[in-house]
């Protein structure tokens, strides 16, 4: 039995049955990470010794009896913008290079209470700003399917780690597609929950009205399993919603789409969509139909506005959230400054990379006197129109199916000189964040070059079950998940 090849849920079953110990799990993953990590570079920080100690303690505590807490003994990787007490959390930024959180994010506290095993913290674009991990201050991660290609971003380290079997599953965060796009590029499953479904407490803030934490996993069942372990209301996050958490595993029982109406938005199949991606997604839509789904063409007429709205709202919120990095309370401090203003200016100059500076500048500009109404106010109003498009669509259909990205994974450097082109590649994922609705990305094929292609399903608020049901039905009736990257 190769432990690292098992899905999270398969591993959970074996652990619960006593067929494998926590120490065996950690050692197996230690070996696997040792083999492929030099090529993939998924991790910012590994905590091998701590994981072995944790596993040993767990095995000793469990001696003679088996407990069935969902994440007990499960080896997970966590995106390095989610606070882990006592373990560095850097946001892949020089600014937080030495930051060791004094507390756990709520999702981490939940996993810890269940006895999970932390393998390490995964790479990201600095402060989750980017689509390729090329903006990481420690260098990019690589796509396990083709090491010359980006893994996507910003949760590229998490997606690459899952694809390369360097963890059983991972957590990412998604502000404009940062879970779903790397999941698509790396051929794994990524779920952005409804805004408010998962607590953001301890997630280092990028754009607070858009950010959500969610699972990146080897298959759909794992996404349901891990979402159930982290979801729920949290008094420490006043935007988390007090809606009961259903048993997401139950949503997988019906392996069909009978009585589900599936909307295909014409705006998502416009020019700029790679023909191979279009072909794979259209074939997947036929499969959803064969599984009992009623396919309907729909309109989301304000789709074209999404990128512009997003890059105003997200950068405005970022410019405010990142004001806290001032060289005083934590993080980097510039040396030999003569007064407080120079301390701020130089600390931020030295601590932030180019993309973070660009977004702080853009966000500051759109919020500044004289431009606020024309840019920020306008974007907030058009955001309302985009939400209304989704509300109208969900009167007619139960879920919406689209591509995740216009193209498969691109090569390093292909877009890094042109920020606007990089931003425009987020076109299919951004709307779900602006509307606050849940969306899942799962594999639906491969390009001629052997790169994975992703399928996106978008659902009504708090109807993750419908997404999981449809995604699982599709996954179980196709073979994409059985293909694994060679990592070479």
């Amino acid at each position, binding site marked *: 039995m190769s432990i690292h090849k098992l899905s999270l849920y398969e591993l959970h079953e074996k652990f619960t049955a006593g067929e494998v110990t926590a120490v065996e799990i950690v050692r197996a993953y230690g070996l696997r990470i040792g083999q492929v990590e030099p090529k993939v570079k998924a991790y910012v920080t590994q905590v091998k010794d701590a994981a072995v100690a944790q596993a040993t303690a767990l095995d000793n505590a469990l001696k003679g009896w088996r407990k069935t807490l969902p994440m007990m003994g499960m080896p997970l990787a966590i995106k390095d913008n989610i606070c882990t007490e006592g373990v560095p959390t850097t946001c892949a930024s020089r600014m937080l290079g030495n930051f060791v959180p004094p507390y756990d994010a709520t999702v981490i506290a939940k996993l810890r209470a269940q006895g999970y095993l932390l393998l390490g913290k995964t790479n990201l674009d600095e402060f989750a700003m980017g689509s390729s991990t090329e903006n990481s201050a420690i260098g990019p991660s690589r796509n396990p399917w083709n090491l010359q290609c980006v893994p996507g971003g910003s949760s590229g380290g998490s997606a690459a780690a899952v694809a390369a079997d360097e963890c059983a599953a991972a957590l990412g965060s998604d502000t404009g597609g940062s879970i779903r796009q790397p999941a698509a590029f790396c051929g794994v499953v990524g779920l952005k929950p409804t805004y408010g479904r998962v607590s953001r407490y301890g997630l280092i803030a990028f754009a607070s009205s858009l950010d959500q934490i969610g699972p990146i996993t080897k298959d759909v069942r794992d996404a349901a399993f891990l979402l159930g372990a982290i979801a729920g209301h949290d008094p420490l996050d006043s935007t988390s919603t007090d809606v009961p958490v259903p048993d997401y595993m139950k949503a997988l029982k019906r392996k069909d789409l009978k009585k589900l109406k599936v909307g295909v938005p014409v705006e998502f199949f416009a020019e700029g969509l790679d023909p191979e991606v279009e072909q794979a997604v259209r074939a997947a839509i036929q499969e959803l139909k064969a599984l009992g789904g009623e396919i309907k063409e729909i309109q989301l007429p304000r789709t074209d506005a999404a990128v512009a709205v997003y890059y105003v709202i997200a950068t405005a919120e970022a410019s405010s959230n990142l004001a806290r990095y001032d060289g005083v309370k934590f*993080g980097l401090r510039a040396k030999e400054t003569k007064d407080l203003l120079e301390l701020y200016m130089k600390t931020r100059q030295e601590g932030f990379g180019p993309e973070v500076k*660009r977004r702080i*500048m853009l966000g500051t500009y759109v919020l500044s006197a004289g431009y606020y109404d024309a*840019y920020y106010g306008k974007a907030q109003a058009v955001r309302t*129109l985009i939400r209304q498009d989704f509300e109208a669509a969900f009167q007619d259909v139960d879920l919406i199916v689209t591509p995740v990205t216009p193209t498969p994974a691109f090569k390093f450097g292909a877009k890094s000189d042109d920020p606007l082109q990089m931003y425009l590649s987020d076109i299919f994922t951004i709307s779900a964040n602006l509307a606050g609705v849940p969306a899942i990305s799962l594999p639906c094929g491969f390009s001629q070059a052997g790169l994975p292609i992703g399928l996106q399903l978008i659902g009504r608020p708090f109807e993750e079950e419908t997404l999981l049901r449809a995604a699982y039905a599709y996954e179980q009736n196709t073979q994409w998940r059985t293909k694994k990257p060679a990592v070479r």
Partner: protein
Amino acid sequence: MEITKHEVEKVAKLARLELTESEKAAFAKQLGQILTHVETLKQYDTTGVEPTATVLGQVNVFRPDIARTSLSVERAVANAPESADGFFVVPKIIEDRER
């Protein structure tokens, strides 16, 4: 849309960011390109449209005003670049009065 170097400098100061000359030039060009794209929002009529402040109708949340334990001072300042006696240390803010 054109963004001048002067505007970049003004915004950078508001954002408390020191920029190099090459950063100023690059940002002037790139911000201009991005804002030109943002201007396409003008084509959408938003007369009478309520701006989105919260996405799914969240409302204010209150909790009872009860004291509870929080981070100790030692842990709160543990990540500070410079601290003394449980305080954050910063450069002098108020200048000495000349006598």
